[in-house]
């Protein structure tokens, strides 16, 4: 069996430090103002009964990604291992994929003028390295690996821990699994829920 990459994010461990976000910027030279991964935070409750919800966000590399078929030039494609990628030479910047993604994971790179998103740092995977965000996650909340490998950490976590995904109703079958997520936090934009400013 081939590989099937997935990410598990254990929100019981996340401290909301944004190291993942900055590591991605540094690794992938993502321009200022746009993000391949980011962390949404939401505080709910009434003093003194308060909760904090954190949701690190990135492309879900879904099994059935809604960005794939809308691309008129076939710039978006999916590898055998599940990774969804963009051929920047083909991309014409039409933004159909951006509209189609239910997770706000895509944006137009203001320098290159093409669509862009998380690649799981695929070139790092090929060299035997972890994605930059996973590597740097200071609390160890992010775990990445091959779901088809029963010895992998992601396999073991999915086998032993209750997990959620964001927006299962879209039938995208997203491959970012959250441990300990609050249901209402699993929306693409937490602040939409409370009507705050992004």
């Amino acid at each position: 069996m081939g590989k099937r990459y997935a990410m598990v994010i254990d929100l019981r461990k996340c401290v909301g430090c944004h190291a993942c976000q900055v590591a991605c910027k540094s690794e992938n030279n993502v321009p200022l103002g746009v993000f391949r991964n980011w962390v949404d935070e939401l505080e709910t409750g009434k003093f003194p009964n308060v909760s904090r919800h954190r949701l690190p966000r990135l492309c879900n590399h879904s099994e059935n990604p809604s960005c794939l078929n809308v691309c008129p030039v076939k710039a978006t494609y999916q590898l055998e291992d599940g990774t969804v990628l963009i051929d920047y030479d083909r991309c014409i910047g039409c933004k159909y994929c951006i509209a189609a993604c239910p997770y706000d994971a895509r944006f137009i790179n203001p320098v290159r003028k093409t669509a862009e998103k998380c690649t799981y740092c695929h070139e790092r995977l090929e060299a035997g390295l972890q994605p930059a965000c996973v590597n740097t996650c200071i609390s160890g909340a992010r775990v990445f690996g091959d779901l088809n490998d029963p010895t992998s950490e992601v396999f073991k976590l999915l086998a032993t821990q209750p997990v959620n995904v964001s927006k299962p109703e879209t039938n995208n079958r997203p491959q970012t699994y959250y441990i300990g997520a609050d249901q209402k936090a699993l929306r693409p934009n937490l602040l939409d829920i409370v009507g705050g400013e992004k």
Partner: protein
Amino acid sequence: MKTTRRNFIKAAAALGATMAISPLAFGNITQKTIPSWSEGSPAEDVLDTDPSVSFVYSTCLGCRSDCSLRGKVKDGVVIKLDGNPYSPMTLNDPIKYSTDPKEARKVAGKLCPRGQAGLQILYDPLRVQQPLKRVGKRGENKWQAISWDQAYKEIIEGGNLFGEGNVEGLRSVHDLSTPIDPDAPELGPKANQFVFLAGRIENSRAELVKRFVNNSFGSINWFEHTTVCEQSHHIATANTFAGKGHLKPDFENAKLIMNFGANYGEANFPMNGLSRKLADFRIKGGRLITVDPRFSVSASHADVWVPILPGSDAALALGMIQWIMDNKRYDKSFLEAPSKDAAALRGESSWSDATYLVRTDNGKYLRGDEAGLGGTKDDYVVLVGGTPSLAAAANTADLAGEATANGIACKTVFQLLSERSKERSLDEYAKICGIPKEQIVSVADQFSSYGKLAVADFYRGPVQHTNGFQTGRTICILNMLMGNVDHRGGYQSGGSTLSYMGDKNGKYQVAKLHPGSVKMKGIRISREKANYEDSTEFKKNGYPAKRPWFPLTGDVYQEVVGGVLDGYPYPAKILWLHMATPAYSIPGMKDRIINAFKDPKKIPLIISTDIVIGDTTMFADYILPDVTYLEQWNALGAAPTILGLVADVRQPMTHVFPQAKSVENMFIDIAKKMNLPGFGDNGFGAGMPLNKEEDWYLKLVANFASQYGKIPGATEEAQVKYILDRGGVFDSGGAYDGSMMKNKVASLCTIYAEKVATTKDSMTGKNFDGIPQYYPVRDAKDQIVKDNGYDFIATTYKQAFHSHSRTISAPWLTEIQPENFIEMNNDDGAKLGFKDGDMIKVSSLSNKEGVKGKVRLRPGIRPGVVTVCASYGHWHYGAIDSVIDGKTVAGDKRRGTGVNINFALRVDDSIGNVCLEDKIGGSCSFYDSRVKVEKA
């Protein structure tokens, strides 16, 4: 694969060569010279495994944590920063120390956002690149770029430097024989009028600069910043745990941690490792109680959030102490062992003074020679079955009790603590804390249900108060009652390090290698580590002193400034600021410091070392271009959270601007030009030069090798290289010794602080209290600060993605949160008619103009409290345009966003020119100011 790599910014590839060799004129820094700056990164990245990149192992300084760092370098450009995989600072399971660095490429340690954004501080286009001398008046922000030769000449020789009359240089002030004041010779010689004030100055750099200031130049006035951080925490801890200033829970084995205002996952250091330890502690089922008026990251991960009013931590802890004593939930076995031997019989390595008798008349422990028991002045006295006995002769002694021994009335320490804790009822403590009494009982019950595996931890939150030292002591005593010191899963002194100064058995005992060393003399301008009673002023005027003296602490940052501003106890002639920004940092003092610094009559010469034109250094006469931490050397240890051996090295990854210079090299240059001892061709002794910083640091690294004793290599050079190739010496093993920690306090730990109890307060003439107490906010004259009509209490905090004054230049961090907010409880906001985002004003009685910022309403702030995260609200640091050589260098407005609430905080008007402060521990009060909150 062309699709996944960011191969679209090719222009950056040649950057390294450009940066490394071309001396860039200040005004020319644009996107032409740093082409990829707008993308935030200096060059295109390359995989770690690519043979074209090399690695430099060093140490971070994105915050105070000193995490072990690895820089990826291509063509002289640092292109990415990661954690060092050899180090337990950045990985729970680091690679073996013997691993070949080639193999280590495949693994990287973890690094937080500010650590990674260090690249942007290194390649900041607004860095100072040449020595700058002011033209025009101080603070006009007009500069002339000058050569190092000119800078040195003017700083050393003085003269009519600014067309404002003669200014004394270092050479003239370097006078070791003329007293500052012949009528008060204790103040010391004129040389003391040179004052060096650092913000952050790392260990090993500190020693080199002290070598210059204290022992070559001969000024006693060398300072760093600790009271603006959390000095009272260190002083309280040291007064309880036998001089050890910093203990931490053993996160791996503790079962309950009660956290008083230590911001795990945000600020408390090492933030990187602590975040991991917190996460693992929680996953393993560890119970966490977080005490904080703000729903902090630690609170968000806690089982219980105790949102007390700022400054009431001592009331909470004393309430808990009362309940624990009443319910006999303390560790009786630990507390009643009066000596090392008695403790050893019980499997304890440390012991307590709980049973020791304290004299009612003079506050000293009763000694053996006074008790008529045939003992000596080194013997303590206890009660055994009510009868006085020498502590050393008893295996078990009475906890509670009072007695008259040899005619001297005494009580046991346990008795004194019990009485102190009962001075208020639990209802009264609950009212002070602003929480239900039931919550005090509940947390006391939970805390005392895990035996030695419950730890009370604290850091900055509870101690940056006027009652900070005493509060810190109450928290330490909670640990004493649990008997958890030195225990696996208890409160512990952490991993070990190696003495970089070679003090123990190092090859180079560097401090001693100082021919012609000068012995500094006199009174520090901050009046620290000295008794007012020894001064001529006291003999003339008695109490109170003009400004407080600080016999029990050091590095009283705000009082260095207060002393300089007041010219008390003597005026300063030269002030050297290094990585320091007192106007930005010291609560309430911004405008007062700026106004004073603008006046050359008050401070004739201000020299600064900075990497940018800073918020305070813009008022200096000279800004000397410092290097960043990625271009520096250091030899360092680790915080006690990290177990095992950590001896870190910081070494330069690159050197971006040729004219920038480390402060070490500046002082070496100046010493040589002034012919001061301890520097130059024979600086360490005949044939042992100290001509450049490497002469210093390579000896320090060699000391690591000689003390560790297990570094491969036949020669010193080979061993040093081995260490540098790994960024230090790391050995994670052997943290435990059975049920105990391997590193132990293993000493008498004290509930009673005898030294404190026998020291007088220079402002009142009364003794300080040796048993900790709660008291409300007080000024230097012990008057309670009420400020009626100012109904909120202002506090500050630090986020995980900013540090102090020095990260606003990193766009990766500012884009996380482009501005900050004045945060308050949503119900409080609603009562005042505020909507999220409204502009509001916060002011105090002593800063009525206050500060303005956008309000953020949230449930996670205790009602009655407003808080603002630090790092925003800059007025310079590159935020505004500067004029250099007549040309305008455009500022970056993004650095000037948000608000710094420090400027609105309370000044101690009873003495002026200082914030409210803790007279024992010396800490600045950041969390006591009563403020008014209104629509702007």
